[in-house]
């Protein structure tokens, strides 16, 4: 059950020391594939990149796919505005991520791993490479055939979309593919590929260290475990926090707000804006709500106080999407331009307020018809801002 205790449940798993990684790795690669998959499934770990796909199932599907060559990819193309947790994980506890990748390789039968690191995080590359050398060195000593390479991105938000990421790694424009086929069956180089967010892998490490139950016991139904939150905006204590899932937004704002919080953007620009009046009924977790609204999230929490214009916020998001859409599919490419230019036209009076209805319907069409998550999720912030702050859009 959702737990409203007026207190955020802080946790400290992810950044806790990683000195035991060799032991964890050596121990787990002796366990059978089936046992490891079952452990992951029973933990109910869901992808921490934002989409929330059950991680154990992902590994299982790839393990079952028949292929000589398979890949494990760590998605470190952290580009969602307001999200900066993966950088911290890779800076502070890279061995947890590498260990989880190698265990994944053992589970699915992959010998090669990649970390797709966004270009903006180039400064992490050399320290990460050092970690990789040490890691691979150890793998040799325990006769584990697994290597990891870093693949650098070059400034394209859309490459965080898993199939766009494959395209990018294959030396092409980062344009998302049609699905099916899904990555577990046909991913990088059309081979079965497990692709997990950095944080997901770090949680997998926690699970393989302490067991599924320890993780499962945290959080609430459908939203098990802890989650890193990237807190920014109008808050006295911006930063990265590990919290149990299932908290209410009121509790969150009580802890992190500046006393004047007007709205919180949950899940970055592609997430939802929650206005103050709905804080109490909003819980942070995955689908399967019990009470109130439950929001899936990549962990970005941006707080806005009453000095902020929600029009400016939306304008900024839409400019972002307009630029970062890959541009291949009609609803996303043209839709983003129309939404952006549309709210400007309403604000300036060129179009009357009713035009917002047309734009809301457009955002809904984008949600239903876009090829990938980018175009599909523009409606999240668009409708939640326009519907809750209509006056600010017009006057």
């Amino acid at each position, binding site marked *: 059950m959702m737990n409203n205790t007026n207190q955020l449940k802080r946790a400290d798993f992810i950044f806790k020391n990683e000195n035991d990684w060799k032991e964890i790795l050596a121990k787990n690669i002796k366990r059978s594939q089936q046992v490891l998959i079952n452990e992951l499934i029973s933990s109910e770990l869901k992808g921490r990149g934002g989409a929330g796909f059950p991680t154990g199932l992902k590994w299982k599907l790839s393990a079952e796919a028949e292929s000589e060559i398979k890949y494990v990819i760590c998605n470190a193309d952290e580009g969602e505005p307001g999200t900066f947790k993966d950088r911290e994980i890779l800076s502070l506890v890279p061995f947890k991520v590498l260990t989880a990748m190698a265990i994944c390789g053992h589970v699915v039968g992959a010998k090669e791993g990649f970390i797709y690191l966004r270009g903006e995080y180039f400064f992490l590359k050399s320290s990460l490479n050092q970690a990789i050398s040490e890691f691979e060195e150890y793998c040799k000593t325990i006769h584990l055939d697994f290597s990891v390479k870093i693949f650098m991105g070059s400034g*394209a938000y*859309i490459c965080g979309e898993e199939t766009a990421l494959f395209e990018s790694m294959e030396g092409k*424009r*980062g*344009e998302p593919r*049609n699905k*099916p086929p899904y990555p577990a069956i046909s991913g990088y180089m059309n081979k079965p590929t497990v692709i997990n967010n950095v944080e997901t892998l770090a949680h997998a490490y926690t699970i393989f260290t302490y067991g599924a139950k320890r993780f499962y016991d945290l959080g609430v139904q459908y939203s098990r475990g802890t989650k890193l939150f990237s807190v920014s905006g109008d808050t006295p204590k911006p930063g990265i926090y590990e919290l149990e899932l299932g908290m209410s937004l009121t509790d969150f704002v009580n802890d992190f707000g500046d006393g004047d919080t007007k709205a919180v953007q949950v899940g970055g620009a592609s997430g939802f804006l929650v206005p103050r009046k709905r804080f109490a009924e909003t819980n942070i977790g995955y689908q399967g709500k019990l009470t109130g609204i439950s929001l899936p999230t990549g962990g970005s929490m941006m707080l806005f106080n009453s000095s902020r214009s929600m029009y400016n916020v939306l304008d900024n998001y839409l400019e972002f*999407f*307009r*630029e*970062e*859409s*890959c*541009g*291949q*599919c*009609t*609803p996303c*490419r*043209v*839709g*983003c*331009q*129309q939404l952006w*230019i*549309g709210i400007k*036209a309403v604000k300036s009076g060129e*179009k009357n307020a009713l*035009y917002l209805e*047309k734009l809301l*319907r*457009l955002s809904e*069409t984008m*949600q*239903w*018809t*876009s*090829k990938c998550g980018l175009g*599909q999720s523009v409606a999240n912030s668009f409708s939640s801002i326009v519907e809750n702050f209509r006056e600010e859009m017009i006057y």
Partner: protein
Amino acid sequence: MNKIKITINNHPVEIKKDTSILDAARQIGVNIPTLCYHKDLCIAGNCRVCLVELAGQKRLSPACATPCEDGMEIFTNSVKVRNSRKHIIELLLSEHNADCTRCYKNGNCELQKLASDYKIMTSDFIPLVPFKHYTIDMFSPSIIKDDSKCIRCQRCVRTCAGLQGVNALTVAYKGDQMKITSFFEKSMNEVNCTNCGQCVIHCPTGALTERNYIEEVWEAITDPTKHVVVQTAPAVRVALGEELGFAVGTRITGKMVAALRSLGFDSVMDTDFTADLTIMEEGTELLSRLKRALVDHDPDVKLPMATSCSPGWIKYIEHMYPDYLGYLSTCKSPQQMFGVLVKTYYAQARNLQPDKIVSVSIMPCTAKKFEANRPEMHASGYRDVDYVLTTRELAIMIKQAGIDFMKLEDAKFDRLMGESTGAGVIFGATGGVMEAALRTAYELVTGRDVPFDNLNILPVRGMEGVREASILIENPLKEWAFLNGVELKCAIVHGLINAKKLMDAIQSGETQYHFIEVMACPGGCLGGGGQPIPTSPEIRRKRAEAIYAEDEGMPLRKSHLNPEVIKIYADFLIKPLGEKSHLLLHTNYTARKRY
């Protein structure tokens, strides 16, 4: 076979597993509109016009890119589908210069048709065109690229890459800046575009069109001081009908001649004549190269010899394999042979001043426009071919002139350069030049017909991208004794992507041929970039059938038997590869930069 059960609009259907929803629907007569989909191309799934609703799913799925799964309940015309589709069309129109009445593709535009089918009467969205700084590239003599008409379906890009392996066109930038362009946004004329025009016949809108010379030709025709001669390429006669109400694959040679005469051309002759002439020159060239290789052991002789009729292929090899230009036959294409002879041989025979002659060609090809424009194509002392019109442009002129094409009586080509054989006709299909050359060369060497039933060299025909054939030479005539026992090895490719495969194989030395035929366009000229739109494998197959039927119906089917060819050698050229031939009918090539 793996069958699955689905329903489409509540009708139960049994279908092969992995069939796309689009194909499944079409099989039962349910049409789903498409834009980025094309039968010739890989699936993109980016226009989102073909979206359908699947029971239990909130989001819509692209019918072209979604395979059917057992138990799927598909709705192609639900409220959600209809409204979304309208929205998508509206979005495309908002980014598009929808000035339809002033568009070259007015009436033959897939976007226009969709807008009409879905009755897009309002334009609520803000027009984005004024913000876009669209440009029109008019520097190419063959193709005009108007970005304001582009809907970014990427059919042209997939054509240029997947069918042709040329990749002159690319998608560049992302987001709102995303566009279809060339290397560093240079003009198509500057980069490695082969002018093949496959992008033009695969473009759903007016973004890529042929550069048309209709007005120039009308002007020449109307000018009383000008004698306007027209030639028609083999592939035109099996496709022009499609533009004028006939079923695909209908042969309308006689009506075409009648229409041209009725348009006011002073002389209507046939490129097939110079196709036959090409066989004489090229066949002789091949035999002379074989002699140099086998008898003289000349290390400089270049084999395999490659055909040179396809100007798209010529430009391709000039860019991509400049070291291999010596392998090309030096023969000009039939169009250019015809052009130079019109202003020399024909002018003399008819007692005309060459500068008063306007030479027009009707071609299934946009690259021919570029070819006619090449600086070396002035061997007559004048520009050999003044204007090149595509099959489509001719159809436009026929419509403009108010000619009731269907009711025309068949007419015959004018003499002197109007006679042809079946061998000339099959130049229009992939494998045709090879077949025509073998019919003549084999007979020249052995004194006998090619050892194939009814002269039909079936192994060189077909639509396989790369085909190989060989023909064993036995008991040759005395002067060709050195060819006894030689197995003449040939390869035939069409579509430049296959030309790349062939050239790479030749380059690596893994294959050894004597003679290769390369046609830039899929199916050969009958699938050319100047042919009626649309195109598809099925359409090209029907046109090919028509070509071979035309061949079978001809009284003469071997180039060397063409009486006008015999006459021109007797009266004017003297002999194949002779001095005059060299001067007028042969050419050289230019190494170009690779992009």
